[in-house]
């Protein structure tokens, strides 16, 4: 709860300054997009998104599309719909919505996975290993984890050390009534045809979110539903993206992400990994 209060305080103090009109503040320290036109692209290559769920397969990535549209205030960017309340040289404040990333581990066609095109059978549950029955009681077929959308506010702070993003999001569809807080630092560097992005992030997930996705229901395992108690926790991780622009349309691409799950998530009996990764190496075409 302290974490939530700190995020709310930070966003609130920024909002109180949000009175000036937006201005064109795009420079070479951030990625830029042409206002009022669609940015469509597709990356082809090979990659993997690991799946920490026990007996669930990793997700291969062969295609990675990108779809974005930025108007004067509204924007749509790979599934995130937002409205810019103010954009200044030093900071931006947005109302924003986005998918929850946790459900994507359970369903191949979760909207979060639309932007990862791999095998349609990627998440098919394999038979539960029986060799560990005596040590860990088995878990039956999982109940449905419903789709939901998160909505809230995000703030970007720009300085010479990079871009900071602070976001506070809440479940919009009353599925789990949980909250998520996100803090991310990103450093964008470009020289001639090469551009690099380094990022480190912390994602706070409320007890409701952790319990909804990683908690065990009585129908799944009576034993684990009593013996695993979900709590709120922080995921942490790093990202790296390298792009080399060969022509205005074609670029070579390498992107990777590593996530270390919060202890409370890693302790879930549904998981057999305490971290996750994803990467893609290929070529991208911008239309």
């Amino acid at each position: 709860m302290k974490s939530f209060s700190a995020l709310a305080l930070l966003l609130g103090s920024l909002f109180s300054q949000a009175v000036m009109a937006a201005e064109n503040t795009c420079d070479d320290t951030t990625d830029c997009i042409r206002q009022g036109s669609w940015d469509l692209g597709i990356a082809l290559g090979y990659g993997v998104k690991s799946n920490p769920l026990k007996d669930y397969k990793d997700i291969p990535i062969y295609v990675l599309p990108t779809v974005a549209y930025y108007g004067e205030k509204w924007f749509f960017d790979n599934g995130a719909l937002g409205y810019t309340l103010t954009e200044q040289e030093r900071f931006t404040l947005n109302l924003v919505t986005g998918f929850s990333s946790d459900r994507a581990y359970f369903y191949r066609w979760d909207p979060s996975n639309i932007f990862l095109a791999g095998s349609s059978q990627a998440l098919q549950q394999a038979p539960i290993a029986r060799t560990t029955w005596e040590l860990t009681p088995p878990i039956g077929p999982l109940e449905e984890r419903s789709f939901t959308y998160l909505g809230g506010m995000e703030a970007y702070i720009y300085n010479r050390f990079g871009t900071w993003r602070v976001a506070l999001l809440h479940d919009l569809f009353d599925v789990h009534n949980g909250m998520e807080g996100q803090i991310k630092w990103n450093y964008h560097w470009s020289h001639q045809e090469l551009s690099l992005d380094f990022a480190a992030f912390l994602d706070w997930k409320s007890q409701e979110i952790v319990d909804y996705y990683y908690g065990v229901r009585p129908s799944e395992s009576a034993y684990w539903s009593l013996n695993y108690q979900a709590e709120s926790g922080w995921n942490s991780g790093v990202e790296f993206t390298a792009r080399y622009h060969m022509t205005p349309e074609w670029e070579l691409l390498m992107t990777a992400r590593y996530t270390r799950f919060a202890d409370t998530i890693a302790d879930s009996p549904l998981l057999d990994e305490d971290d996750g990764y994803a990467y893609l190496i290929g070529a991208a075409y911008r239309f």
Partner: protein
Amino acid sequence: MLLPLIALIGQSVAKAAEIKEEALTLSPSLCLVSPDSSRCDIQVTLSWSTPQPVCIELELDELHRWCITEPTQKSLALNISTESDVHFVMRDPTTNQQLAEAVLRVKPLSEPQTRRRFRNPWSIF
């Protein structure tokens, strides 16, 4: 009843042909200005083919007027500095009747507007 109408139409057609014949040509007729400097500084050339002497007028802060008496002179070069469209009018110096007109359009050269992109385009969820 129809005769006056036909006569009026006939007069209009004849007048249009006369104006076309005495057309005033402006080159260039468009001035593109950059967003950081909205002022247009340009040299334009006005050309005409009418045989009689003419006067050229333009309204730029105040009214300017050049009267060309040399029958062989059929053009006039002018340096213009303006932030808005400029109207040139060619008149008959004896009757002051308007013979033709031309307009220099001033348009801002709009650069594609860009803004920060908030998401990594190739982010893996």
